[in-house]
């Protein structure tokens, strides 16, 4: 057992309101530079939709991630030792600027400095690449909130195995539904970007599992851009180096949350340590497709287990990190409650960012009710309410609402379950059970026996359900983010013995001030 620690994340999609605050926080800190304007290390896309870069999930185009070869082991789909070096002069699978969007600004000065004329001056868009005026074709989140559905949502890559009738049903005007999918680098356990980098510039940090690109070693061979199936490694066209989300490691080391998580308005984001067994990574990544999720979850170790703690200590994991693993909200969601699922596990990179799939929108029916009293209270001029109906979410069968979800389970399964509906259903049932339980506690209009049966169905106790409810709805900042101390005092000691530099010259020296030859 080779126990290592990983800073891991969980996004609760039911809570995401699609406000893009995370994206803006990230952009303002990290990618507001020349060559990086088009990059969104954190982006939020509307599902169904083609996402960013366009159709990134379609690996027939981009050849990202790993594939199982005949022998049962795995190899990189579009890069790797031989393919990568053969294609080094021209990478046929490289996404282009057009696949993201051409970044632009406006000639704002024209608004103020144009000479007086008959027409109002306008601020015309200019490309941030060439500086020339452009016609904007697309931009980040061009398909936000299902806008341009025929062009975008209908070309979503997750309709595999959906019948065309099911697909059509998703786009009927009165039945249309959507949810938001915030994405950052998954800091995978089996990162395809690291494996594809010919120069060896990309690496995973041993201490916390953050995946980074060494800018000094990157030589713009661009294979990581192809290899990452989530398209979260970006090529900076100005510096000639690839860049990616760094999980705000300077903030993490200082005990602060990453900017995207800190700023999250919907409080959908959770961050914490998980211990995993590095010996089993390869085995888990090469598992058959229907076992991928289970095998990945098996990698994650129980931080209360004596054996695990012993091995962790032997491996040099700090006590504070083990403690953080025991109190990690992500561990609870993923392992204890079984609510977190990885996005597209079939890419076999073992992503360590988990998602709680959205339960909303729940199906409901309009049932008759006497709203006369309500209607009487309304101002007759401003509004009127002529229907005596009630928005009713109860059904005859307990799990009926999930079966009739507006999102076909198959669609969700293609996103979070590598095609298996059973896993998604289980998670959604649990969420619904918690909701029914809380309804019983707070409103009390549901029969107690019914709620007990529901909880039993999904293997939850009222206590566990309350825990889930607390962590989901009430958790404060410190509960949502559990950052282990980075022990910089040790790290710094090992980086350089400050005593060595005592008496040396200060800033401005490239080399150490050592007496020359």
């Amino acid at each position, binding site marked *: 057992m080779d126990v290592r620690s990983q800073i891991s994340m969980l996004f609760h999609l039911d809570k995401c309101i699609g406000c893009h605050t995370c994206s803006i926080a990230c952009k303002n800190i990290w990618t507001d530079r020349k060559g990086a304007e088009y990059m969104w290390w954190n982006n939020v896309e509307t599902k169904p939709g083609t996402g960013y870069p366009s159709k990134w999930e379609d690996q027939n185009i981009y050849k990202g991630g790993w594939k199982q070869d005949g022998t049962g082991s795995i190899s990189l789909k579009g890069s790797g030792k031989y393919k990568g070096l053969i294609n080094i002069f021209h990478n046929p699978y490289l996404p282009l600027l057009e696949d993201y969007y051409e970044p632009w600004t406006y000639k704002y000065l024209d608004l103020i400095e144009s000479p007086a004329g008959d027409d109002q001056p306008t601020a015309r868009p200019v490309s941030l690449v060439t500086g020339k005026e452009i016609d904007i074709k697309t931009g980040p989140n061009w398909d936000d909130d299902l806008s341009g559905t025929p062009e975008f949502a209908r070309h979503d890559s997750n309709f595999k195995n959906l019948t065309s009738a099911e697909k059509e049903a998703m786009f009927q005007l009165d039945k249309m539904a959507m949810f938001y999918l915030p994405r950052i680098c998954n800091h995978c356990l089996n990162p395809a970007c690291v494996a594809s980098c010919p120069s060896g510039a990309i690496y995973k940090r041993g201490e916390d599992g953050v995946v980074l690109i060494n800018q000094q070693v990157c030589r713009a061979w661009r294979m990581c851009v192809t290899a990452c199936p989530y398209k979260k490694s970006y090529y900076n066209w100005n510096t000639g180096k690839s860049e990616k989300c760094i999980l705000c490691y300077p903030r993490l080391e200082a005990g602060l949350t990453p900017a995207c998580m800190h700023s999250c308005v919907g409080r959908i984001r959770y961050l914490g340590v998980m211990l995993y067994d590095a010996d089993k990574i390869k085995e888990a990544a090469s598992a058959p497709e229907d076992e991928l999720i289970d095998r990945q979850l098996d990698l994650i170790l129980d931080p209360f287990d004596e054996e695990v703690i012993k091995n962790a200590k032997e491996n040099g994991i*700090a006590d504070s990190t083990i403690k953080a693993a025991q109190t990690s909200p992500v561990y609870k969601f993923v392992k204890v409650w079984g609510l977190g699922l990885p996005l597209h596990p079939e890419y076999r990179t073992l992503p360590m960012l988990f998602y709680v799939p959205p339960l909303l929108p729940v199906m409901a029916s309009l049932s008759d009710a006497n709203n006369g009293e309500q209607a009487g209270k309304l101002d007759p001029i401003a509004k009127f309410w002529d229907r005596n109906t009630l928005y009713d979410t109860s059904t005859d069968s307990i799990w009926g609402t999930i079966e009739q979800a507006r999102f076909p389970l198959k669609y969700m399964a293609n996103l979070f379950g590598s095609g298996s509906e059973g896993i998604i259903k289980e998670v959604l049932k649990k969420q619904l059970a918690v909701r029914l339980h809380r309804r019983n506690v707070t409103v009390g209009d549901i029969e107690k026996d019914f709620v007990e049966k529901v909880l039993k169905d999904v293997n939850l106790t009222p206590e566990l359900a309350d825990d889930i409810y607390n962590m989901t709805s009430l958790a404060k900042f410190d509960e949502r983010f559990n950052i282990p101390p980075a022990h910089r005092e040790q790290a710094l000691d090992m980086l350089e013995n400050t005593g060595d530099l005592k008496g040396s010259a200060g800033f401005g020296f490239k080399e150490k001030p050592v007496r020359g030859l």
Partner: protein
Amino acid sequence: MALSNNFFFIGLPYMALIVFLIGSIYRYRSSKFTYSSLSSQFLETRKLYWGSLPFHWGIVFLFFGHLTAFLFPRSVLLWNEVPIRLVILEITAFVFGIMTLVGLANLFYRRLSNPRVRKVSNYMDIILEILLLTQVFLGLWVAYGYRWGSSWFSIVLTPYLNSIFLLNPQADAIFVLPLVIQLHIIFAFLIIMIIPFTRLVHFLVFPLSYLWRPYQKVIWNWDRKKIRDPKTKWTIHKPTNN
């Protein structure tokens, strides 16, 4: 005449080699960040396909062709003993030369005509591409006009290059060569000289080591096992990731 001959075929080669060696190493050590292939495929890919592929494969073949004639002159002469083999070798090399020239011309045209690629071009790129174009053109001219290069290279140029590297320059044979060949030699050293000042440095860091490294790479900032053990001696590990 002797003075300029000595300059071009003895002085320039040494100057070029010294500038190349010191320049590349200094640049690697002092500003490693600038070592990059500076790919512009992200901005424009179709024209690049018709430029980069023929150019690179062509020049790789030509480079190793010249290298073989330099390192193993006897083997080349032996191969060339049978006329048909000589012709096959020469024609193959010539085809690769044409390929390189066409690729390079495409790249040059792409660099000038595409506004995005122009934005990421600097003046050294232009100088380098002009030098390379001239050099490849001269090489083709030599191959066509002064046959059979693969044989006389082994007899005339290999000893000359050897003498340069052995610090005992013997350039007399070069002085009487036709002007085109002389120019080809001069341009070769000019290009070597400007390598550290151009994007050409990227071939020095061609990632062959990728072939034998394991796929995954994990870097520890410090050895945690040691640091937790009070019995280990205090040592300083410099991490390799910064």
